């Protein structure tokens, strides 16, 4: 399925700040992470480490094969959520993040996401939502877990 790049589409179906319920799970979709997607992400930030590109090098490393960089969750966030997810609302401003890393994602992994809002509040006239995200591989192992602060457009 083609990824919908028009973030205005389905905008009306997305939850506003008022409708977001902290604690309520967000709808998510599993995603197969390809080597191509990993390398495209790496190139966009100029990260050409052989652990992501050189199969022979990676095989000899402690990882025993190619992996994705820790920050691959940047891509996974939008890969594992449907077009109606409020993280796509145009004007959503990312105010900060914290992530912890357990094991690397690997090419071919089927990634799933458990996500929810944890808190919402008004500060300095702005509407904030704190969200919690945990990515798992197909074996149910945690890849990484993160918390983000967003300022909501409405």
């Amino acid at each position, binding site marked *: 399925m083609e990824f919908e790049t028009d973030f205005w589409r389905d905008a009306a179906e997305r939850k506003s700040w008022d409708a977001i319920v902290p604690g309520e799970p967000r709808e998510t979709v599993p995603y197969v992470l390809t080597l191509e997607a990993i390398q495209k*992400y790496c190139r966009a*930030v*100029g990260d050409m480490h052989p652990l992501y590109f050189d199969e022979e090098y990676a095989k000899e490393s402690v*990882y025993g094969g190619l992996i994705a960089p820790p920050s691959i969750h940047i*891509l996974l966030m*939008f890969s594992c959520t449907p077009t109606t997810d409020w993280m796509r609302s145009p*004007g959503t401003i990312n105010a900060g993040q914290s992530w912890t890393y357990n094991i690397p994602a690997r090419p071919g992994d089927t990634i799933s996401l458990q996500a929810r809002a944890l808190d919402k509040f008004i500060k300095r006239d*702005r509407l904030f939502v704190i969200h919690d995200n945990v990515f798992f591989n197909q074996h149910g192992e945690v890849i990484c877990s993160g918390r983000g602060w967003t*300022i909501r457009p409405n």
Partner: protein
Amino acid sequence: MNDLFSAIDVGSRVEGSQFAVTRETIREFCDASLDYNPLHLDDEYMKGSFGRTQFGGIIMHGMTNFGLITRMITDWAHEWGAIQRRLETRWLIPVKPGDTIQPFATVKSMKTTDESRWAVLEIEVLNQGGEKVAQGEAQVEFPVREAA
């Protein structure tokens, strides 16, 4: 392996690569991250105001900072068999096409726990004018044995 933990000290510095931000690099990041928020694409939209904030044009994804910081830390860590275990970031100033940014890290503290060894790094990303556009903190683990 793992010599780095004994080699580094509080105050040790790590320098990341410079990254020149253009409309093309921002677009490339949209395609790579699937984050097509109009903040990064639509100049007309960005003429508007966002609560109390006005940007005046498209801005780089904050998460590009996150990716560049990760690249700096993992380049440093991989070489020594160490592992990036945590990264926390906050964006301070929007980054725009034409800016050049560069991440830096300083070892702030080191700790040995029951099973491993850790360094806490203070992170900053500076623009070409020396302004801090992002700041954060990272934790790197130096396993006693090699870990997968």
